[in-house]
């Protein structure tokens, strides 16, 4: 058996590639070649079985995954993404106070979760983040459920973030944009 053994006029690789493209565009030369066509039929059922192979393996070991997933997530919780340190205005030259980006993002997420129909995706801080009391632009992207007016949801969130950052952020909010990046199907998650 050699690598270039042919089925009709075609190699196994050519036939496989043809299947990969869902037989589009159609290749009458392949389809009209009885040996190649017969090989395609077998390759196609092999494809189907191959796709089922992963499901079969996953199902075979059903329940085997809870353990390793729990242990991964336990490790993950100890390696939180803190992000950059943002300095807090402070008159005492002997001390340095910072708030991490991670903490502020966590705050924004928690606020978002209190707003019906809203889930915060990402929060980005740009501008003068490295200076205590600097001017910072804030962009929050969210997923919103479409079973109510999306702009009202976004506005409700923008308003409470504005209040919370005014109270807690160690910077001046120069701009605050809430961007709806995704819609949640089927109402509130």
């Amino acid at each position, binding site marked *: 058996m050699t690598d270039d053994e042919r089925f009709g006029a075609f190699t196994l690789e050519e036939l496989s590639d043809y299947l990969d493209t869902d037989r589009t565009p159609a290749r009458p030369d392949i389809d009209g070649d009885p040996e190649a066509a017969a090989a395609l039929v077998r390759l196609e059922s092999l494809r189907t079985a191959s796709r089922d192979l992963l499901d079969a393996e996953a199902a075979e070991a059903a329940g085997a995954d809870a353990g390793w997933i729990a242990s991964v997530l336990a490790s993950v919780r100890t390696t939180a993404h803190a992000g950059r340190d943002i300095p807090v205005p402070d008159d005492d030259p002997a001390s340095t106070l910072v708030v991490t980006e991670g903490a502020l993002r966590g705050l924004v997420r928690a606020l978002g979760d209190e707003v019906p129909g809203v889930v915060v995706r990402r929060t980005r801080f740009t501008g003068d983040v490295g200076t205590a009391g600097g001017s910072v632009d804030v962009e929050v992207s969210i997923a919103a459920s479409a079973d109510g007016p999306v702009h009202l949801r976004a506005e409700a969130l923008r308003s409470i973030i504005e209040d919370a950052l005014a109270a807690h952020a160690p910077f001046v909010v120069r701009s605050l944009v809430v961007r709806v990046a995704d819609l949640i199907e089927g109402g509130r*998650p």
Partner: protein
Amino acid sequence: MTTTAIVTREPKKIDEEPTLSDADALASLSDASLVARSADGDTVAFGVLIRRYGPHMRAYAARILGHGDGEAEDAVQEAALQAWQRIDRVDDPDRVRNWLFRIAANKALDRLRRRHPHLDLEAVVDSADDRPVDEVVSTRLQVQELARIVQALPDAHRAVWVMREIGGASYAEIAEATGMPQATVRGVLARARRRVLEQMEGWR
């Protein structure tokens, strides 16, 4: 929330407070939303993602490794941890499943290389186990039969076949992951496909 709590260096505290963002609430989010939220540091969102794809990641690693299920579990744990560390660098969040599969394949391949410490994968491709599968199988048993045939492939053949036929990886991706030249990947894949096809003769 007090200012003292906010200036802590431990953002974890906020995550641990009970909010509506528990796993159930996030389960209906799209992959892209979960990736974005994970990249922002939300461990709950990452948990949803790993529960969504973890079982198939493990199955994929297990198919590449062929045997030794403990190995697949170790590989997929490492893969998931690496995914967390790199989740803010996902190019295409809508295709995070493929990204996770790629990491799982890489971790499985690391283990295959350890099985052949003095050889590279390319060098062991022809150490084939030539036992024919002589059982004629019914259609219902095709998947189990295929599983047996794939498991019996030599390590490098199996890895390449699984990445291509199950993982949908391109030749370039397989070449990068295995360190084989693309031409070798093509050759190995051709031989693996041929062997699988031959041994599946029974279910025509």
